[in-house]
């Protein structure tokens, strides 16, 4: 409804700004698509996300704006490097 939606939009913007052709979508942790590659998730829900999609790289964040983990993720994607899961 609120903060997570805002976080999704922020990430979409960053991905677009970096000219990356990567789909970003919002999902409740209980409804993650099984084939997701990278899950950007609030720290307190990161373990739940990992068990829902064990093969995905999990990037936990604390803040919806200017979180270092999210900045790092975009830099990694831009460099074409693999995303390392935090869990």
């Amino acid at each position, binding site marked *: *409804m*609120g*903060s*997570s*939606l*805002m*976080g999704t*939009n*922020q990430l979409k913007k960053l991905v677009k700004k970096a000219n990356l052709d990567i789909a970003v979508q919002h999902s*409740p942790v209980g409804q993650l698509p099984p084939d997701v590659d990278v899950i950007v998730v*609030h*720290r*307190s*829900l990161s373990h739940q996300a990992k068990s829902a999609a064990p093969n995905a790289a999990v990037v936990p964040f*604390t*803040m*919806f*704006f*200017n*979180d270092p983990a999210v900045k790092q993720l975009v830099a990694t994607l831009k460099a074409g490097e693999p995303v390392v899961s935090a869990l």
Partner: protein
Amino acid sequence: MGGKKRVQLVLEDVFIARATESMDKAIEFVGGLLVARGIVPPTYIGSMKRREEIASTYLGNGVALPHGTRESLEEIEGVGVVIAQYPDGLDWGGVGRAHLVIGLAAAGTEHVPLLSAIADAIQDEDQARMLWTCDDAAELLAKFSGVGCRDNEKLA
């Protein structure tokens, strides 16, 4: 406000210069306003507090966006957004210091453009800081409505 009309903030939605209080009290304040407007039942306030336990709604840059859990969606009637400003800030569940507390209840998606405008207004830390102490509710409102009087938003 019915139908798919774009959600706009009005002066009555903005409460400036509030004295520092606890996170729970701040949630009760903004949640209480949503209740008083008939948008949510009083139980919604408990849902807002629960949501903070599940995952904090602290956005960063001194802004928190408390709202209910997914389970509370069906008890929401329409859309409500209220903004409380705390110039001295308050501890938001140990995650950060909140200077702007934006209480939200929205069943659908018609509030999403407003969320985007709010995001634009606070994504730059210096600009966000000005909103922490801005003592003119109308100016705060203008910034959050995406019709800001400053034109340097393009810099980002």
